[in-house]
């Protein structure tokens, strides 16, 4: 497990130690060449942009690619699913499946790919622009974009959980008493999207615990892992940005810590979006598995 995490986060940790070292270097340069101070700041900014934007953009591209492949998967699977559903007939009354749900999930992924990620990138670039040219600030605009996206995503997830729980076959297997303090802890400690995370995880769990009767625990847990690894990676990277900002605050410029903080915030929103995709993915994967199981055992 440790090498796995190392592979996952190795590059991220490297780039953050580079940021810390670079701000030390800038400190020394400021002492030696005070007339060069303005440019030292610019160059530090520059180093941080090249080094720090890379993991952030990698995550953007990662999530975009995942969204793309998941939407392709929907397009490929949807006709087969509906056709076999009609063929299977009564078997699906077991699950109270709504075909609209699948379309809905597809719609969410297309929305992510075409609208959410470009908007988020815009917010990030607006932040960078603000820090580069403090005379032309766009902080409010970036903030509005981020809060709108969070609102949109949580609305979609709320709609999902309504769709799922309306069916009535799913019940939340974990005892509420045991998970409540844990939920509270997550909500308190992850800024912006903590409560959203616990809620969406809860509704995914509610769905898959109902389904586990058909599918089996190990398959569910592997689907969960596959779907949630990108989100978890994004979340950890976002937390790293915030930690780095906190670490270098005493000796670095206000601008640089602010920029790192902003990138962190944007990545939190990206993490929320990737939860949406994970949600859609889990739904489709589980559904296909159930379908295959039903079709093979019905005979």
């Amino acid at each position, binding site marked *: 497990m440790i090498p796995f995490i190392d592979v996952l986060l190795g590059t991220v940790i490297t780039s953050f*130690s*580079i940021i810390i*070292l*670079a701000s030390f*270097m800038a400190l*020394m*340069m400021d002492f*030696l*060449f005070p*007339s*060069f101070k303005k*440019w*030292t700041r610019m*160059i530090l900014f*520059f*180093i941080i*942009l*090249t*080094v720090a*934007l*890379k993991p952030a*953009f990698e995550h*953007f591209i990662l999530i975009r690619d995942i969204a793309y492949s998941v939407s392709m998967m929907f397009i490929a699977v949807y006709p087969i699913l509906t056709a076999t559903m009609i063929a299977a007939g009564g078997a699906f009354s077991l699950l109270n499946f709504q075909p609209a749900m699948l379309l809905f999930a597809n719609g969410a992924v297309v929305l992510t790919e075409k609208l959410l990620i470009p908007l988020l*990138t815009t917010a990030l*670039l607006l932040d960078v622009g603000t820090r580069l040219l403090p005379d032309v600030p766009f902080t409010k605009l970036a903030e509005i974009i981020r809060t709108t996206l969070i609102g949109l995503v949580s609305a979609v997830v709320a709609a999902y959980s309504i769709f799922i729980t309306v069916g009535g076959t799913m019940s939340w297997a974990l005892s509420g008493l045991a998970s409540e303090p844990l939920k509270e802890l997550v909500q308190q400690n992850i800024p912006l999207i903590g409560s959203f995370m616990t809620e969406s995880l809860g509704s995914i769990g509610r769905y898959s615990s109902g389904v586990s009767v058909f599918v089996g625990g190990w398959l569910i847990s592997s689907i969960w892992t596959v779907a949630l690894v990108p989100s978890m990676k994004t979340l950890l990277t976002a937390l790293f940005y915030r930690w780095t900002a906190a670490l270098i605050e005493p000796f670095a410029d206000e601008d640089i810590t602010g920029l790192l903080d902003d990138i962190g915030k944007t990545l939190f929103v990206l993490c929320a979006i990737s939860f949406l995709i994970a949600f859609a993915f889990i739904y489709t994967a589980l559904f296909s598995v159930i379908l295959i199981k039903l079709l093979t055992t019905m005979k």
Partner: protein
Amino acid sequence: MARDGLMFILLQIIVVFLLLLLIAFVVPKLQSLLYTSIFFIVLFYLLTTVIFPFGRTFVRLFESLPNPFAKLLIGSAILFLLSEIISEHIEEAGYRSLATLSHFVIKITILLLWVNQTTNLIEILSSLITK
């Protein structure tokens, strides 16, 4: 050892200063010419004994940073400082426009040093635009 060397350099600078005062007293007509030549001799001496070794130490200190950055930063800062000193010197002699020109040219040189890095950054940014 290093501290002794630095004290010795300080002493040398004081000797040069005294020499300059003496020149101003003995041959006032040749003062600016002699000042300039002595200044450049001292400048190159200090460059080879203090500034360049320090630059190397600095680069070694920040070796773990991505390769060109530490070198580029210290290099461009030293270049900027030198250009500032030289153009100030020219300005003191009364050739202000020449001073501005030399400083400007050095600035362009420094920017050219950074072209590769700028290209990288712009490529990262434009990879988002072209889809």
